[in-house]
C-alpha cells in the first residue's frame, strides 16, 4: 500500500463516520455507555481498595509490654526501688521497640505508656471515671503498649504472631480501633465489588461486540462490492479500522466527560454533607486529580482498541467472497 492510498483510506474512514450519521451516533452511544459503565465499575473498585487500605491503616495491633515482676507492690517500694523498676522497664520497652521495627509488614509504631493507658481508660469511662481515680496512684493497672499499624491487612494475623514472639512482649491484641464488624464487612464489599466489575466488563464486551457486528452487517453490501472491484482485505479494512478507532476515541472522551463530571459532583456532594457521610468515617474518596489521567488514558486506549479491532475483525466474515 502506498502512502497516498493510506492517507486516502484514513480520510475515507473519517468520512464514513460522518456520513453514516445514524450508525455512528448509535455506536458511539453504545460504546460511550459501555466505557462509562466500566469506568463506574473501576472507580467503585478503586475506592473500595482505597477504603481497604484505609482500614488497614486504622487497624492496629496493640503490643502489650510485659511488666517488670517485683515482690513488693509499687506503693510499698522505696524511691530507689521504683527508679530501678522504671529503668528496667525502659530498657525492655526499647528492646521491644527494636524488635517491632525489625518485624516485616509494619507501617507505623506508636508508644503508649502506662500513664497514657490509664488516662485513655478514664476518658472512655466518662462519667464513671472517678472510679479509677483511686487507682491512678497505683502503677500496674495498665501495662505499657505499642500501637502498631500494618501495611498489608491480609497479613495482620502473621504479623501479630511475629510480634508476640518478641522477647518482653506479654500478648498482642488486634483490631482494637475498628470493630470486627467493619473488618469483615470490607471483605464482603470487596467480593461484591470485584464481582460487579467482572459482570459489567463482560456485559460491555457483549454489547460492544454485538453493536459493531450490527454496524458492519448494515454495510455488508458495501464491503461485498469493494471485494468485486478488486480491493484487498487490508484496503477494505483500513477505513473500518480508522472509523472504529475514531468512534472509540470519541466515545472514550465522552465517557470520560460524563464520568469525570459525575465523580466530581459526587465528591462535592460528599464534602458538602461531609459531616454526615464521610466525616465520621474520616475516609475520603480517591481525589479526582489523582485519577483523571488514568481514567482518560484507560478509556482512550480501550476505546480505540475495542473500536478499531472490533470493526476490523467483525468484517472478516464479509471479506470472504
Amino acid at each position, binding site marked *: 500500500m502506498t502512502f497516498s492510498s493510506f492517507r486516502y483510506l484514513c480520510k475515507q474512514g473519517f468520512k464514513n463516520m460522518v456520513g453514516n450519521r445514524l450508525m455512528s451516533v448509535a455506536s458511539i452511544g453504545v460504546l460511550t455507555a459501555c466505557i462509562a459503565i466500566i469506568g463506574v465499575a473501576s472507580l467503585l473498585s478503586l475506592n473500595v481498595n482505597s477504603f481497604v487500605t484505609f482500614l488497614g491503616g486504622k487497624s492496629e495491633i496493640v503490643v502489650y509490654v510485659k511488666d517488670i515482676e517485683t515482690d513488693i507492690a509499687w506503693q510499698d517500694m522505696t524511691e530507689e526501688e521504683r527508679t530501678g523498676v522504671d529503668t528496667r522497664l525502659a530498657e525492655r520497652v526499647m528492646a521491644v521497640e527494636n524488635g517491632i521495627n525489625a518485624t516485616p509488614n509494619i507501617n507505623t509504631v506508636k508508644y503508649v505508656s502506662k500513664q497514657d493507658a490509664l488516662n485513655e481508660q478514664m476518658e472512655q469511662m466518662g462519667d464513671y471515671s472517678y472510679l479509677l481515680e483511686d487507682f491512678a496512684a497505683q502503677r500496674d493497672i495498665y501495662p505499657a503498649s505499642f500501637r502498631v499499624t500494618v501495611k498489608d491487612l491480609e497479613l495482620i494475623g502473621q504479623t501479630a504472631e511475629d510480634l508476640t514472639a518478641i522477647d518482653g512482649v506479654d500478648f498482642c491484641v488486634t483490631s482494637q480501633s475498628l470493630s470486627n464488624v467493619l473488618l469483615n464487612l470490607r471483605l464482603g464489599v470487596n467480593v461484591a465489588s470485584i464481582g460487579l466489575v467482572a459482570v459489567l466488563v463482560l456485559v460491555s464486551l457483549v454489547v460492544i461486540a454485538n453493536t459493531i457486528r450490527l454496524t458492519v452487517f448494515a454495510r455488508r453490501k458495501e464491503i461485498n462490492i469493494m471485494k468485486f472491484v478488486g480491493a484487498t482485505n487490508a*484496503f477494505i479494512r483500513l477505513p473500518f479500522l480508522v472509523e472504529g478507532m475514531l468512534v472509540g476515541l470519541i466515545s472514550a472522551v465522552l465517557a470520560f466527560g460524563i464520568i469525570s463530571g459525575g465523580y466530581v459532583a459526587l465528591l462535592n456532594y460528599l464534602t458538602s454533607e461531609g459531616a454526615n457521610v464521610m466525616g465520621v468515617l474520616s475516609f475520603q474518596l480517591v481525589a479526582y486529580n489523582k485519577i483523571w489521567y488514568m481514567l482518560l488514558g484507560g478509556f482512550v486506549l480501550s476505546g480505540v482498541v475495542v473500536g478499531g479491532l472490533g470493526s476490523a475483525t467483525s468484517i472478516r466474515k464479509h471479506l470472504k467472497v
Partner: protein
Amino acid sequence: MIKFKGVKKVYPGGIVALHDVDLEIKKGEFVFVLGHSGAGKSTFLKLILHEETATEGVVTVNGYNLSKIKQKDIPYMRRGLGVVFQDFRLIPTMTAYENVAFAMRVTNIPEREIKKRVPYVLNLVGLAHKAKSFPPELSGGEQQRVALARALVHSPPIIIADEPTGNIDPELSVEIMELLKAINSVGTTVVVVTHEHDLAQRFNKRMINIENGTVVADSNAGAEVNGYDI
C-alpha cells in the same frame, strides 16, 4: 484469457444453472452472450468473477485456475477484469466520481492520474455533469453508465458487461456498444451479455448462445442463432 472446461454449476437447492460448458475466449475477442431469462448467463459471468465457484470442471481466467486460486490472489485476479453488473453494485455512500475512482484506488494508482482519468471516462459515458451525485440520486440508465465507467476506468485487459444497456434507450445503447468496440479494437477482450439480439447482430461479432444452462450455439460473425424470431 478465459477458458471453461467441463464446467457445471449447481446452486444450493439442486438448481443446475450451467452444465457441460466448454469454451475459450481469446485475447482481443469481442463476444456476445445471448440467452433467455434464467438461461444461466449471469451465472456464467459469476463463475468468471469467482463470485460463485464451479461445482465441476475448471474455469481459468487470465492464467488463474479459479478452482485452486488462493484467497489472497482473488483481488489481483479481479483487477484484471472490468465488470458491469446486472444490478449495478454501486456503493450508495460514494458519489459517482468516487465509485469510479475506487476501481483505480484499489490498484494504488497515484491521485494525480485518477484526477485526470475519472472525469475523462465519466465524460465518455455522458455523465460528466453527474459526477457529484450519489447513486440513489441517479436515474436507472445513469447508474448503469456509472457502473460501465467503473469497469473501463482502470483499463483492464478484460471487460465483462451484464446487460449494460438494459436501462438505456436504443440510441445511447448503440453509442455504448461503439465505445466497447473501440476499446476492443485496441486489444481489450470484451464479453457482453445481452438479450438485445438485434443490437448484437448489428455488430457482427462472435455470439455464444446459452439455453437451459448449456451452450447451444457458438457462432462467429453473423452466423445464424437459434431460438429467436425477432
